[in-house]
């Protein structure tokens, strides 16, 4: 039976090349767009090493304080002591990391003041390496003791290590200059694609406590260059964590005499697209995908009806020989499905090519621009079975949407009507 189906399908395509070509092309284009959108969204939001906790992480903004009575003396910034009051005892949090708000984070790094290059430098604490999972090739991450002691230690990438020293083991314990100060290399990690805008860096150093906290004389001790990354406990929804944080901020404000402090937390998808809490990226992507699936389905419905009309004699004869409505419909659906699957496969390949060629337009942000080299797409991602299954699913959806009405119509026409030639 299946063999018969396939024979008929090949025959069909040979006899109706234009219809087949248009259907395949329309499906390929649709699938290419839909899969590109999906890939862009996933690259930015799915859990991928080193950002393996994206789905349960919240990032703070810079913080904002002002005099309550007239809103003057308004400044961006948050001190570590303020942050500790808010994030110090969260029930719903597994890890809290206090890092420096580094802006574009560019610094001069070299083995001596004479040969320095611009690199991204990230001042962090020890918990940073618990939120992100880096691949340590040699040495160790920054420890709690090193942070408390404010030791001048640094973790560097293997690319940096190889450009300064002969291999990654040898780099451990050696000195590098960052800005105008010497740091000792404590660990070397595998380089990270600048696609990961939260984890990307060339060098990680111990954050300077005096920069994190500007002291009591500034806005009741509220100001500093601190930023916070919070990973929620497994299974805890981010909304719950966010609500708990908002409670703590309220408590903090109750204890302030003259100033008000404001802080907003963003989830990873919210920081990856538009940096705006009002916009929900997931919703937008879903709406876009729906639109992209429905429009070509309308297109192909029309073409399919015309095609089926052409074959009304054949359908009439088959029914005269005892084929049921269901059997006729099944075959038509199957034939259409074959077309959409071919289109889908072509479309998937198109989408891979599109994402690779247009990655700079689709995925770039401030980190990728300042990074020392163009960013790589993790190839493992392309060979992901989820992508393949999604492609099949979308093909099925297009198929059903476009074929439903015409096939139902066709299988319902009575035998007499078709043989008479209506």
């Amino acid at each position: 039976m299946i063999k018969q189906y396939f024979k008929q399908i090949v025959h069909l395509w040979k006899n109706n090349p234009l219809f087949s070509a248009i259907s395949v092309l329309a499906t390929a284009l649709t699938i290419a767009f839909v899969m590109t959108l999906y890939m862009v969204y996933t690259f930015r939001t799915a859990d991928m090493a080193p950002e393996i906790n994206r789905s349960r992480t919240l990032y703070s903004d810079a913080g904002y304080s002002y005099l309550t009575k007239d809103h003057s003396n308004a400044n961006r910034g948050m001190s570590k002591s303020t942050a500790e009051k808010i994030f110090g005892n969260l029930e719903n949090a597994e890890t809290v990391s206090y890092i420096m708000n580094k802006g574009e984070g560019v610094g001069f790094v070299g083995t001596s003041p004479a040969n320095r290059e611009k690199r991204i430098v990230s001042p962090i604490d020890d918990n940073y390496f618990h939120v992100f999972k880096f691949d340590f090739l040699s040495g160790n991450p920054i420890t709690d003791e090193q942070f408390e002691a404010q030791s001048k230690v640094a973790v560097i990438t293997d690319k940096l290590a190889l450009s300064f020293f002969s291999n990654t083991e040898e780099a451990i314990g050696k000195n590098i200059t960052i800005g105008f100060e010497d740091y000792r290399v404590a660990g070397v990690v595998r380089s990270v694609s600048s696609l990961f805008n939260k984890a990307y860096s060339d060098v990680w150093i111990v954050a300077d406590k005096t920069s994190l906290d500007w002291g009591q004389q500034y806005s009741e001790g509220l100001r500093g260059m601190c930023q916070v990354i919070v990973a929620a406990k497994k299974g805890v929804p981010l909304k719950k964590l966010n609500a708990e944080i908002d409670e703590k901020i309220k408590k903090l404000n109750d204890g302030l005499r003259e100033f008000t402090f404001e802080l907003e937390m963003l989830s990873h998808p919210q920081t990856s697209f538009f940096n705006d809490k009002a916009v929900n990226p997931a919703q937008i992507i879903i709406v876009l995908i729906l639109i992209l699936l429905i429009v070509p389905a309308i297109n192909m419905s029309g073409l399919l009806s015309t095609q089926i009309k052409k074959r009304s004699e054949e359908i009439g004869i088959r029914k005269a020989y005892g084929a049921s409505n269901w059997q006729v419909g099944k075959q038509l659906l199957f034939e259409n499905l074959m077309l959409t699957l071919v289109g889908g496969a072509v479309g998937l390949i198109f989408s891979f090519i599109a994402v690779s060629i247009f990655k700079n337009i689709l995925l770039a942000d401030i980190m990728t621009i300042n990074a020392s080299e163009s960013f790589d797409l993790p190839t493992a991602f392309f060979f992901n079975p989820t992508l393949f299954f999604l492609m099949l699913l979308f093909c099925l959806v297009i198929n059903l949407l476009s074929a439903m009405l015409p096939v139902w119509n066709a299988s319902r026409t009575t035998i007499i009507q078709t043989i008479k030639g209506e």
Partner: protein
Amino acid sequence: MWKTALKQIWKNRKSNSWIFIEIMTVSVLLWYCVDFLYVVVRKNLEPMGVNTEHVYRLNLGAHITQNFDRNNPDSIDYYWINPFRQVLNLVNAYPGVEATAYYAGTGLYSPRPMFQGYTADEKNAYGAKIRYVSEGYDNVFKVKLREGSFADWEMRTSPQGAVISPELADSLFKTQAAIGETFRDYYVPDLKYRVSGISAPMKYDRYGRYEPFIYTPVSYGMFAYTIPAIAVRVKPEADTPKFAEKFMDEMKSKLNIGPYYLFGFMSYDSRSEVADINSGISSYVSVIIGLLIFFLFIIFLGVLGTFWFQMESRRGEVGLRMALGSSRKNVLRYIILESMIIFFLAFVPAFIVCANLAYWDITYTFNDAMDYTWTRFWITQLLDAAIMIGIISLSVLIPARRASKVHPVEALRNE
């Protein structure tokens, strides 16, 4: 001709209804794309009030090795201002440099603006974005002035000179004829200003709106807290693509004066590209353009397919027309006419839907960048219709030409 066309369209309504629905849906969706791109293009065409072509931003870093007294002007002079002047002199002497100036406060294409509050009547306070600029700033950036000039630009005079944008003039003085008027900083009563010029409307970044803006001199005290950015205007003939690289290489060691060192040198055009990517606009624009191309392709395929199959089943009709004296050209025109009528019939409901969306403000495009006016609606609708007509005519041409090439005898015989 019209009556016949309408009759034929009705006769083929089963086949035409699909393309009708598709044209209607795509007209609405395409309109969103067109509207968004319209705003993007208009915003880019709006003048910024300053000219940044051939202008570079020089950033100095500071390595503090000595203590200095923030409150002692001589200490600030010695530690910060004198070395800064030396740096400026060296930069000015670099071949190809036309003019330099320095500024602090709200940068150009930078993420963090600086605000201050001002009052003219001691009661009402108005906010404005502030830029502290040195003398010669207007020359480097060719700041457009409607009236007045950057006069009284001495750092130590009081009241200080101030150039304000028309919006601030309206807020403070309720009139544009504000030259010579005085006002003060709302929170610092001693800080007094006199309006020496009214600038052209100013925008903080490309996609923002025209806002209240104020330019005042850089005070000595600022040097104790911040390092002003240096703006360098380069002669057009000297501005090559490698200029920035060359400058960095040659000046890196030379600018190690006092606590300063050369941190960065970048053109403002590059800065604005970075700002766009940072805000997400660039990827938004590419997705919308991608959608636009997608919809055009789908319509193209749809109209092509529908009319191709229709023409195949209507060969007899075409043959008959030609046998009765219609020329090939007329047949072609007639088919295109049919497609245009279908389009207009489908566009009417689409137009009504769009009008409703616009009225109830359900447009997701960029409303804080530009007001939603009826002019904008009409222009975008026109553009939408024009694009649809264009793509439909193109795609109907192919089956139409094929049909008009049919030999009437053959067609009639086949029937």
